[in-house]
């Protein structure tokens, strides 16, 4: 299973490197949303819970783009006709999405610091980002699979994904607030909640993904 997952992952990453479909679009989207927030809030710099909220809402919205494209290639090349364990497909897709998200954030976080953030960037944000990305990737790949057979896929994905990501938003935004000069919070509690979310959605995805994408 790990081998076939690895093969699909390599194929996806190679495809992404060559076509540059998802990651550049997500980065561009993130920067556009920063500008939207600048004008929408009419603020030059943000700090505290406002900064953390703007950052996380932007990251979650950009994840929708990645999730929407996740099975785009499969619909064309028919790889799903191959007798591969569906859980391997989920694992490959979730890992690919995780790598996309990290790649996007390598640009998006410094860009946020440059464009909007008042206080300096604290490296303490890295574990929060990684834990949130695991949850985003697990849920995103599951939702992409759920929506893959529907007629209105690009409509179903955000409607399904955003409510499911509400706990991630709560935990990640609360954990990030103190790093942006906000009031001190209970970091351990929020990291714990992110970890619990990751665990639940990884397990649920492994349990149910076998029933999706059957053909």
């Amino acid at each position: 299973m790990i081998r076939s997952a690895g093969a699909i992952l390599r194929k996806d990453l190679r495809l992404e490197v060559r076509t540059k479909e998802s990651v550049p679009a997500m980065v561009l989207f993130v920067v556009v949303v920063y500008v939207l927030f600048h004008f929408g809030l009419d603020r030059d710099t943000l700090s505290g819970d406002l900064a953390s909220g703007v950052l996380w809402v932007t990251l979650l919205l950009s994840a929708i783009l990645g999730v929407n494209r996740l099975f785009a290639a499969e619909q064309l090349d028919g790889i799903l006709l191959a007798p591969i364990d569906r859980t391997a497909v989920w694992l490959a897709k979730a890992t690919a999405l995780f790598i996309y998200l990290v790649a996007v954030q390598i640009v998006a976080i410094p860009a946020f610091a440059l464009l909007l953030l008042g206080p300096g960037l604290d490296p303490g944000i890295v574990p929060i980002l990684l834990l949130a990305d695991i949850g985003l990737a697990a849920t995103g790949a599951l939702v992409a699979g759920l929506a893959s057979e529907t007629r209105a896929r690009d409509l179903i994905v955000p409607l399904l994904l955003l409510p499911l990501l509400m706990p991630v938003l709560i935990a990640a935004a609360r954990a990030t607030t103190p790093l942006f000069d906000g009031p001190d919070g209970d970091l351990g509690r929020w990291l714990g909640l992110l970890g619990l979310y990751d665990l639940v959605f990884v397990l649920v995805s492994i349990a149910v993904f076998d029933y999706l994408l059957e053909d």
Partner: protein
Amino acid sequence: MFGKRLLPLAIATAVGIGLTLALVFFYAPNDADQGFVQKIFYVHVPMAIVALFGFMAAGIMAVKHLRTGDQRWDMRSYVAIHMSIILGVGVLVTGSIWARAAWGHWWVWDEPQLVSFLIVFLLYCVYYPLRFSIEDRERQARYSSVFAIVAGAFVPLNFIAVRLAETFTHPRVLGTTAGGMPGSMRFTFIVALISMTLLFITLMKLELTSKRASDQLKRLRRKLEAQAASA
């Protein structure tokens, strides 16, 4: 042949709801802090509890469907979600009325139960577009069941998250009078909860029966048409 147990169930529900109303208006005392308004609690909270358990029960029915491949479990899961959504509208409306009467606002964000309920409700609303945008019958059942399981697992997780996030500034009814609810309030609440559960089960049975009947009617009609065509 359809809905054999529906009549006694409906009678039990009607009696239960009548009894609940009588208890709410003539037996349960007025709340010390909120007065008469607090009586909406006997509708709002049982509705919320039954709707949440309905959502989670739909997840369990969906597991049964995926395990056995029996389409009837998918139908049950669908009807359970459908009924819970209807109750969910009631929960949000009564919650809003209560918030307005008790705190002066139609919506309060620092009431964790209500906020988590809204998130769960918004998620389950997507069940319909998801289910009905898949044409193939068998696949529709399978994908709907996967949704029901994922969302069912999400319900408790979401409650934990919202609970952790909210600061408790508003007094909750269960804790207003020291030592929890007085016995007469608790008794009324339990009767209200039981009648709401009965109502849910009756509505579910009614909907399932009518779905089964109309399916059979369709099948018989098709048979008749085939006979007429061959004759």
